[in-house]
């Protein structure tokens, strides 16, 4: 089955209730036995005594969506997963809020877990997205992934 690129981007934080609703939608897919979910939450890091209060995300959206499509297709080819859902915030996400939601499901747990981990790693390494960490005093620094 050929899949078309999906828009992973959401303006602002991803509400926790949206995660619950996404899970609920899978109750009709009775071939599923396992769900694996990763959530990125904005951390109140400190740098030079200043506290991060939010991250503002920007992206090269068209390229990110093409790349994400490639990552998704390669995960579908590699793992026997039933479905995958990926969401990433754009714009401002406050500390304590969710900025990344990766959700994979499969009949048996191994596939869902491995696919979820691989997708998270690839999102962080390969998607042209940038986080600007905003300090309480209006300064900022650019986020660095490791």
């Amino acid at each position, binding site marked *: 089955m050929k899949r078309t690129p999906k828009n992973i981007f959401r303006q602002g934080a991803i509400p926790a209730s949206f995660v619950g609703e996404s899970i609920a939608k899978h109750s009709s897919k009775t071939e599923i036995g396992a769900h694996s979910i990763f959530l*990125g939450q904005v951390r109140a890091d400190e740098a030079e005594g200043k506290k991060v209060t939010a991250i503002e*995300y920007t992206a*090269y959206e068209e390229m990110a969506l*093409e790349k994400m499509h490639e990552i998704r297709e390669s995960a579908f080819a590699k793992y026997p997963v039933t479905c995958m859902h990926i969401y*990433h915030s754009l714009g401002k996400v406050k500390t304590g809020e969710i900025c990344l939601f990766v959700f994979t499901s499969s009949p048996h747990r191994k596939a869902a877990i491995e696919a979820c981990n691989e997708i998270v790693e690839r999102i962080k390494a390969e998607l*042209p*997205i*940038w*986080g600007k960490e905003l300090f309480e005093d209006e300064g900022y620094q*650019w986020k660095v992934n490791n």
Partner: protein
Amino acid sequence: MKILVFGQLTDIFGGSFVRMEDIPDTDTLVRKLEEKYPVLKRMKYLIAINKEIVRENTLLADGNEVCLLPPFSGG
């Protein structure tokens, strides 16, 4: 030629793009940019042409979408 820039590069160029003329290929692009903006020499970035990252010197044509991408920090 309009070159799109992202992330920390927007601080250097003071916006989301920079205009450069007479840029036949990516090596020339880098050389001329670094002449004009020496701070770039200390920065890491990739060049994407039409959403594909190019790592070797590549000819640029009119209509190419050329972007400078600093290290990604999504998630």
